[in-house]
């Protein structure tokens, strides 16, 4: 799967963008040239050699704050995606196998979660559980889990009613055998796509929650928080929101590209796509003989 994703230009681009973001998340806080929380008398200055991206309304170095905030922002969105994965995938698979009662129950829970207004729910849960990053991420993760539940359930259903699963059953295979051998491979690609997409969504959500003051507390920096405070001083520094916004966009874009690449290379369609590319490459490179006839795809 990884090799197939890397065979596509979009896949390579996505992996490149996401590795840069990941590096930022790992190394960012240690690379910051200034104390991200340290204030100074130089407020709202433009870019200079000392402050590459200028300073904010409290005189803090914006570049350092961006670097320092990258870990919280990235970890937050990954946490959201992983919680959604855990909460959604397992009931999604089980809903096909555990009988009607469980199926009905989980379907109704998924419907309920989908129907909840997101921000109001987030505010209410924050009031209940207390305001903190893990609580906020948990809330968001649970709220986006119906996506995983639905995707997993649909993929499992398609496999569970297929004839090759019946053929395996007729040979005496157990449910565990069928899950390992036939279901996993089919469920994994759509789940991977949903995961990549959710990382993008999680990013936007974490950013918008910081914007509302939920989750990350000031003065701790995040990309969303930076964007929010920059927006308050638009008349002084109209260019300031561009950098955090670009970082957020790049991450979401990278995740979506990766999701697209995974979708493109998985399943029958993906195999056909890769084969046609290979065939085209062969045509351009006459040193390699072209197999005769249409049989060799």
């Amino acid at each position, binding site marked *: 799967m990884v090799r197939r994703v890397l065979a596509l230009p979009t896949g390579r681009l996505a992996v490149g963008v996401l590795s840069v973001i990941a590096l930022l998340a790992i190394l960012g806080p240690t690379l910051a040239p200034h104390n991200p929380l340290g204030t100074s008398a130089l407020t709202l200055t433009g870019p200079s050699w000392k402050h590459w991206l200028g300073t904010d309304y409290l005189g803090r170095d914006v570049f350092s704050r961006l670097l320092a905030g990258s870990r919280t922002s990235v970890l937050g969105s990954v946490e959201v995606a992983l919680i959604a994965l855990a909460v959604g995938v397992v009931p999604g698979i089980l809903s096909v196998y555990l009988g009607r009662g469980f199926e009905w129950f989980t379907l109704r829970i998924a419907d309920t979660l989908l129907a909840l207004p997101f921000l109001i729910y987030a505010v209410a849960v924050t009031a209940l559980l207390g305001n903190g990053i893990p609580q906020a991420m948990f809330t968001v993760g649970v709220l986006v889990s119906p996506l995983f539940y639905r995707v997993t359930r649909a993929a499992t259903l398609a496999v569970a009613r*297929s*004839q*090759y699963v*019946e*053929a*395996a*059953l*007729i*040979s*005496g*295979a*157990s449910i565990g*055998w069928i899950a390992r*051998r*036939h279901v996993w*491979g*089919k469920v994994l690609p759509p789940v991977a796509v949903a995961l990549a997409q959710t990382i993008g969504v999680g990013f936007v959500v974490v950013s918008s929650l910081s914007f509302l003051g939920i989750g990350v507390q000031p003065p701790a920096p995040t990309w969303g928080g930076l964007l929010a405070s920059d927006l308050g001083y638009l008349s002084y520094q109209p260019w300031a929101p561009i950098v955090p916004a670009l970082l957020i966009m790049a991450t979401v874009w990278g995740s979506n590209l990766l999701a697209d690449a995974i979708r493109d290379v998985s*399943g*029958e369609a993906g*195999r056909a796509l890769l084969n046609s590319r290979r065939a085209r490459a062969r045509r351009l490179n006459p040193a390699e003989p072209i197999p005769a006839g249409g*049989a060799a*795809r």
Partner: protein
Amino acid sequence: MSTDGRPVLEVADLEVHYGLRRRRRRVLHGVSLSVSRGETVGVIGETGSGKSTFARAVLGLVRASGGRILIDGEDVSRYSSRQWRALRRRGVVQYVFQDPLRSLDPDLPVEESLIEPLLVQGVGRKEAIERGRGYLARVRLDSELFGRLPGELSGGQRQRVAVARALITEPALIILDEPVSALDSANRVGILEILKELRDAGVALIFISHDLGSVAGVADRVAVLYQGEFVEVGATHAVINTPQHPYARLLVGSAPTLRSAAASRAERDALRALLHA
């Protein structure tokens, strides 16, 4: 394989219902059939007559609501799912689906699908592959196709793989659900020849089809299924030459490949009117 007279499959008064309470409908009613070793029985019926349900009940995929099913002398009608699994692992009964493209996992190479029944039985991988090659040769397929995906084979090749998978556990009974209706005539003849060899080797075959003509050439006996009941069971030539039940007569009359009796249109209309009356 021994060719004693003991039936491989005995079905007596089989009843199958679908749905619950008010939506419960009867799909099979009082179905009885016995199949001996080396015998080929054709089960003919139109769409919705219950022929696939019959096969699924014999395989334990559908629960019978009444009657008895004996496989190799064992009464399986009250089996738990664990007992069914143990029985299936012995590979006594195998099944070949109509559409091989859907009955082979599209993401697994052919060899994996082929040797799956052996792997489930606990046979070692190396030995399973070795035996798999032998069976591929038996259905006249090149073992170089082993590593291909089902999508890279032709329809006839895929169906041969499906037949080889059914053979690999050396079953006493194979149920074939319209095994040739998705194939062109050359492949059809190829598959039918393989089936004849199997019958000569003492394997019992149940050949399910909607078309009497495609079964007439291979089956020793024919059972005609109409609205969930066997309306006529008998030797193939008897059913074709002297059909008794109106539906059987209509079937014979509608089969253009049967030279003996292509009924005129008026006769067929009269039979249909008789059936619906």
